């Protein structure tokens, strides 16, 4: 059987780790490559690098980061943020990323999902969706709406419909990030994750709200997620990857131990 995956996300600005990451043991706390390397050695199953560089003339730095990461960690990783064309995505892929994360750009231009999927294969396309709980309406019957720009922009898209649409357009995997749960550390949005996991036949990575190993267990079982994304609890050193995996294994889940 497949193991449940534990994925971590690193925010990178101008080639340096953003301040949201305060990992204690890294040699250089600002260096995404050494943090990635630490997580890799500790047994993370996959990594996501999110480029939050504001100005486009700094974007090439990210290619150097991707290339440096690919030269010293040998697990799949994806890159998102600021990728708007097939050419952008191909460059990141050639630099060594296994997968591309599309979010706002895919909402703005849905054909991007299909075009990247045709160029790189659907296994390389991860559709990342930021989801906000809203009152159910004819437009958003699920009671969940897709938002973009880090939650600032409402799109009117129903989350379940968008997940299905993303799969049909060629996404090979979904990240379901609950804006409501994000940052709370009180647990993932189980209901949302499960609704989406049951609506599509591609893997779902749950994101937002992971604050304790029990939360990961809940979303990987009751929430039907294939993977769980963790950020701050790892970056702030509250739990190690081994502690989380040992907990999940003791609870009966199959996880990869290193």
């Amino acid at each position, binding site marked *: *059987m*497949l*193991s449940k*995956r534990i994925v971590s996300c690193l925010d990178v600005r101008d080639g340096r780790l953003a301040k949201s990451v305060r990992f204690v043991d890294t040699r250089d706390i600002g260096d995404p490559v050494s943090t990635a390397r630490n997580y*890799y050695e500790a047994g993370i*199953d996959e990594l996501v690098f999110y480029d939050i560089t504001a100005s486009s003339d700094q974007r090439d730095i990210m290619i150097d980061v991707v290339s440096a990461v*690919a*030269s*010293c960690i*040998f*697990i*799949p990783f994806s890159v998102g943020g600021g990728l708007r064309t097939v050419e952008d995505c191909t460059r990141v*892929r*050639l630099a*060594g990323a*296994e997968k591309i994360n599309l979010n706002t750009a895919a909402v703005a231009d849905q054909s991007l999902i299909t075009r990247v999927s045709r160029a790189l*294969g659907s*296994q390389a396309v991860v559709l990342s969706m930021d989801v906000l709980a809203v009152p159910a309406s004819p437009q958003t019957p699920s009671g969940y709406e897709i938002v973009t720009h880090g939650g600032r922009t409402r799109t009117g898209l129903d989350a379940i419909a968008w997940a299905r649409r993303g799969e049909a357009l060629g996404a*090979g*995997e979904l990240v379901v990030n609950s804006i409501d749960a994000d940052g709370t550390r009180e647990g993932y949005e189980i209901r949302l994750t499960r609704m989406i996991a049951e609506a599509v*036949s*591609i*893997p779902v990575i749950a994101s937002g709200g992971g604050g304790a190993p029990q939360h990961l267990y809940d979303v990987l079982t009751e929430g039907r997620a*294939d*993977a769980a994304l963790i950020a701050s609890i790892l970056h702030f050193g509250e739990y190690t990857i081994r502690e989380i995996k040992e907990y999940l294994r003791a609870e009966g889940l199959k996880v*990869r131990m*290193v």
Partner: protein
Amino acid sequence: MIVIVDYNAGNLTSVKRALDYLSIPCAISPDPHKVLNAEKIIFPGVGHAGFAMKVLRERALDAALKEAFNKGTPILGICLGTQVILSSSEETDLPCLDLIAGTCPKFALSDPALKIPHMGWNSIIMQRPHPVLCGIADGDEFYFVHSFYPQPREKTDVFALCDYGITFPAVIGRGNLVATQFHPEKSGQAGLRLLSAFASWDGASC
């Protein structure tokens, strides 16, 4: 020097990066002469079997791979490379390389909870010892991404299995050829151990 066969099938640089990290000399090449004269060959790939066979023929790499196999060059197939070394694949009507007798069916799984492609980390079940698997323990996990799986005709060509609703061959081989359905270059320390073992393998089977 290990030659990594370039036939426009996916991200060959990730294999090269892993070998570079291990300080194992290697080069990516689309040239059949270089493939034929290589000390060792890695035959990776992701993508479509039909497209792969078409490019292999156009570049005369199909004949080079067969000849290299026949003269005893150690060869490591990875993912799509592992599928097209068999006689045929359900993914294409084109005949495949037929270095190992067998075919490549698509997953047909009765459990709707099991998604296709089979993507992620899964453990392998050792069947028979192989020099390239000397650093690998039963149950070690590797990274898989595939919708078709290799099915050699002879049981003796299967060295390790994997379970995903059905039990399918994850490592196959014959003589100087060994091939993994998973990606050793994306499988952490276990994958690097396998690549190191291949680099020091003389091609003799157990």
